[in-house]
């Protein structure tokens, strides 16, 4: 049941571990797109926010087809978290947007990338399901 899926707390450090996440989307006519994003933000147990910066293809796809898949790598735990999510809405202000924007601005400004990494929106996705894949794969939940 997608309505009852809740993200566990142990995914929070994985979201903050600084390892870029992989996002896969698909256009309405079935063409997939994979991109790397710097931030997956834990909003609440059923929502995550993805940083909308410059991956226009991803945005176009989820406007057409709201389903997406996010892969998070946990090097310390030698695991990968796969989240099936659905685009909900975009935020250009507020706490979530500010938190994500600050993180990006802090690093981007120190690396001379302020003009490149500029948060345009915090795209809020509802978590439909997630899987934790260990190596060797040990468990999965839906």
């Amino acid at each position, binding site marked *: 049941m997608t309505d009852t899926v809740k993200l566990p707390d142990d995914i929070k450090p994985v979201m903050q571990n600084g390892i870029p996440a992989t996002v896969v989307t698909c256009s309405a006519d079935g063409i997939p797109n994979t991109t790397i994003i*710097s931030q997956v933000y834990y909003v609440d147990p059923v929502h995550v926010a993805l940083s909308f910066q410059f991956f226009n293809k991803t945005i176009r796809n989820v406007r057409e087809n709201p389903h997406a898949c996010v892969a998070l790598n946990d090097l310390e735990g030698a695991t990968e978290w796969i989240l099936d999510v659905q685009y909900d809405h975009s935020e250009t202000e507020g706490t979530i947007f500010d938190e994500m924007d600050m993180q990006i601005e802090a690093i981007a400004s120190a690396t001379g990338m302020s003009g490149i990494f500029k948060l345009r929106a915090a795209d809020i996705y509802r978590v439909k399901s997630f899987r934790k894949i260990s190596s060797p794969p040990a468990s999965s939940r839906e």
Partner: protein
Amino acid sequence: MAKEDVPSAEPLLEKLAQKTSEVEVLRRIALEINSTLDLDQIYSVVLRTMDEFFGFRHSTILLVEGSDTLRVVASHGYETQPLGGIVAVGTGVIGTVAKRRKLMRVNHLRRQHEYFSTIRKQMEEAGRAGELGEMTPLPGLPDAESQIAIPLLIKDTLVGVFSVESPEQKPFSEHEETLMTIVANQAASAIQNARLYRDVEERRQELAEAHDRLKQLNETLEDRVRSRTSELEQANRELRETQAQLVQSSKMASLGMLAAGIAHEINTPLGTIQSNTDVERRAIGNIRDVLQDAAVAKKLRDDSRLNRAFVIFDQVNQVTLEAARRVTKVVQSLSNFARLDQAELELVDLHEGLDSTLTLINHLLKDRIEVVKIYGELPKVRCYASQINQVFANLLTNAAQAIKGTGTITITTRQDGPYAMIEVADSGHGIKPEHLERIFDPGFTTKGVGVGVALGLSTTYRIVENHRGSIDVQSEPNKGATFTIRLPIAPSA
């Protein structure tokens, strides 16, 4: 309830003890940083406490400097001190916290930097380097993995940023974040108070310095006013002297012309008188010779009335000649005194000048003052005769006026090395000690209103000075006064 079901109190007690310890630490920090206005001491307490009690090894305090920068004012735990380092508002974690005025925690900094740097490198390789900004070196750990930065705020005003870094992965807990925020708020207040106090102190110091400068300027101004006043007084004195000398020169010129006129007018009738008297004397002699002739009646020769008449003739002639000689001397003295013909430096017989002057002021001397002349050997002196005669007239007139009733004026002259010395001493009432220093000042007088113009001695002083000479006075009350003049016999200019 079974005993084993009762929850243990130990964890609660430990938690309580930890909370108590933290509260005590926070209380102590608050007390320490609020009991001093020394900024360095405040920084030291905050950073040391963060290390000792919370285990935050690397911490910095940055204060706002100008409108868009922060400067590291204190640091703790760094091998290379970042003290003095500059962070632009909006750059890096600290700069972003300053810009947003919100706390920020960052983990896995290295990975994030690596990710951004990778993108940067890719863009450079793709020929998009022009879109990139410069990499900004920031003070702090070069390999920080975790960082928390807290804005130091007083109401809505940003005072600075408090930052803690760790080279290891160290997720800061919400509890730690709360503790640090409490300390940061305390520090912000203490820092602001200390800075205000420092500003007030600096302002007070500036005011004190400004006051000192003003005082000094006032003193300088007073000195300048005094100096200027003195200059003006001196100029005024010189002006009055010049005026007096002008008047005196004019008087002398008039006197000279008058003397010339008088001499001319008097000399002619005087010559007639002298000539006639001589003719008369010789005529009477002839009459006497005739009467001695034997042919003349003895009666006429022995006539007593006739003989008495002859005696009277002799006496009258004698008196007339004497008077004529006296008039001649006065006229000569008058001419000699004015000396209009000697407007330039001439070799002058000072004794002659003294005698002429004495003749002219004879009316002041009359029978009441005896003049004693002790003239020594004195060569002629190169000077302006009319001016020197004026000096003699001033000194002798003053001497005569200083003597009430009878007395003596002694004039002594002699050569004193390269100088001719003239001394005029009187037996008058003398000069009071408090007046001695001022008697050569223009306008100074003890004679009272209506007696002279109080410029005689100042003019005398100026004339002697112009001749490269000197004038001194010695006096005691009721013991007379002695003025001594020294004039160079052959002045250099």
